[in-house]
């Protein structure tokens, strides 16, 4: 492992996060590039009352909510794609036990964008006329308001800038300085650049010479990055394009067991609380053979024939 620079142990970085009320933007999207290793470690260390933000909710948000670690969750909607719904999140909404502020993929990212640009707000037409806006004006009135634009006199929603204390994203690789390479779409770029402290878990720390050979692949340059943690298969059982595939067996099982809190608790106890780190989690949930089978085909970027 290449150390030095901003490279640190995952456990140490998570230990730095306050035990209660930390504000974190998560970088996954449904079942891809979810920061699973990081989130599992948050759960193992017993972090509580998290204030979470996410573009599209997925596997990791459902784990945190199911583990009882979340106080407030602002997101643009979410699912496990065809594997199911975020039943731990949804049940919290249905029972009123979770403070959820529902945005859309664009509207929450306009808040991240304003944060990344260092400006107080961004106006947009999006959400005018919807129940989403009606709910936000009630619950999140400090962040969303409807006003006339001074330029064209029309009504806009004004979305307040958001600079979360932390953003946590998973990427295939970064160098020790924190130059982050992402293959495929980069839906988490705005939230990564908006955060006060960006933590990146990567499957592999690469040399800065590799970065210098491929600067066009760097989506987030080092000046944004607070810490880099090398965690091979750190997004498993979700996918990392050009690195490894999602585990359809695990996700479809999860998409059933997350309907019941008691079943979820058993799963969490067995695989997260009952393992000491991500390597143990991987060996227990996947095993070497499965991990090898999920390695991405270099042409296709996913495991050809895996599913």
């Amino acid at each position, binding site marked *: 492992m290449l150390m030095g620079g901003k490279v640190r142990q995952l456990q140490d970085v998570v230990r730095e996060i306050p035990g209660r009320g930390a504000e974190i933007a998560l970088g996954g999207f449904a079942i891809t590039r979810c920061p699973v290793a990081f989130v599992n470690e948050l759960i193992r260390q017993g972090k509580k009352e998290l204030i979470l933000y996410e*573009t599209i909710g997925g596997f990791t948000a459902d784990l945190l909510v199911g583990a009882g670690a979340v106080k407030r969750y602002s997101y643009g909607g979410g699912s496990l794609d065809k594997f199911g719904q975020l039943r731990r999140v949804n049940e919290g909404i249905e029972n009123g036990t979770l403070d959820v502020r529902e945005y*859309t*993929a664009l*509207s929450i990212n*306009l808040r991240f964008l304003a944060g990344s640009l260092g400006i107080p707000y961004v106006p947009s037409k*999006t959400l*005018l006329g919807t129940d989403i806006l009606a709910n936000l004006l009630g619950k999140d009135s400090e962040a969303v308001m409807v006003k006339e634009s001074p330029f064209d006199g029309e009504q806009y929603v004004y979305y307040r800038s958001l600079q979360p204390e932390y953003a946590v994203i998973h990427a295939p690789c970064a160098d020790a300085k924190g130059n982050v390479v992402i293959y*495929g*779409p*980069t839906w988490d770029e705005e939230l990564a650049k908006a955060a006060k402290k960006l933590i990146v878990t990567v499957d592999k720390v690469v040399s800065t010479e590799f970065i210098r050979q491929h600067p066009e692949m760097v989506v987030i340059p080092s000046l944004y990055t607070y810490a880099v943690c090398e965690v091979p298969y750190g997004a498993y059982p979700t996918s990392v394009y050009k690195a490894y595939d999602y585990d359809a067996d695990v996700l479809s099982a999860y998409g059933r067991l997350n309907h019941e809190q008691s079943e979820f608790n058993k799963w969490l106890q067995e695989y997260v609380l009952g393992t000491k780190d991500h390597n143990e989690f991987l060996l227990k949930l996947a095993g070497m053979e499965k991990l090898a089978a999920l390695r991405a085909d270099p042409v296709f970027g996913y495991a050809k024939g895996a599913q």
Partner: protein
Amino acid sequence: MAAVTYTTNELMAVTAARALRDGQNVVVGLGLPQVAALLAKRTHAPNLNIIYEIGVANAEAVDPGVGIADPRLWHRSEYFTSSIGALGSILQKGLVDVGFLGALQIDCFGNLNSTQVKLADGSIRHFTGSGGAADIATFARNIFVIMKHEKRKITASLDYLTSVGLLAGGDSRSKAGLPMCLEVKIITNLCVFGIKRGQNVLEVQSLHPGVAQEDVLANTGFAVTFAADLQTTGIPTEVETTLLRTRIDPRGLFIK
């Protein structure tokens, strides 16, 4: 010549495909919308740009995926971008001609609910939420929906308004400050709804072959009106069904 045989899903995909024009930019998700866009691209609209809200343009997938977060759907893309890149600089800027949306419920103004439904006992059941749907309904010039025709889904009143179609009809949409919406096209297994001009409410513009007006009335939760020049939906050609079965959905995941 033997008559072309087709499934209802093939008819819906073909109907949606034929409504797309060459050179348009469309936002789709997995399922029949993607099938329709790919069929249009392989027939009359080779210059169609197909965008996924996750930030992917013009992919040429060779393996079926489980959703737009599946890298199978990103294969051979022309462009990857960020959330703001896809939903801001492309969608909000006004570059999207057609947005395909899914829904739990739709009302007579083409407003959509993809968030939550009220159950008989008064409790709610929460589903996916918006994702980019409400954003797409705001900024795409045309909204297309392909859905199953059931009374509880095509309903008099939504349990939650996620995405705005024609809001409350008339000029209510523009009065609410929203950009113009040129068309709301709802393609079901029975018929095609479009906008009744002037009133800005949905009307049935074509019935699928073999479907009677009574079938639509019996399966719709709001008071249905039929267009003065009510059509019969055109049936697929052999070229279209062959493309669907051999090239676009050879495993029959969506067109069965």
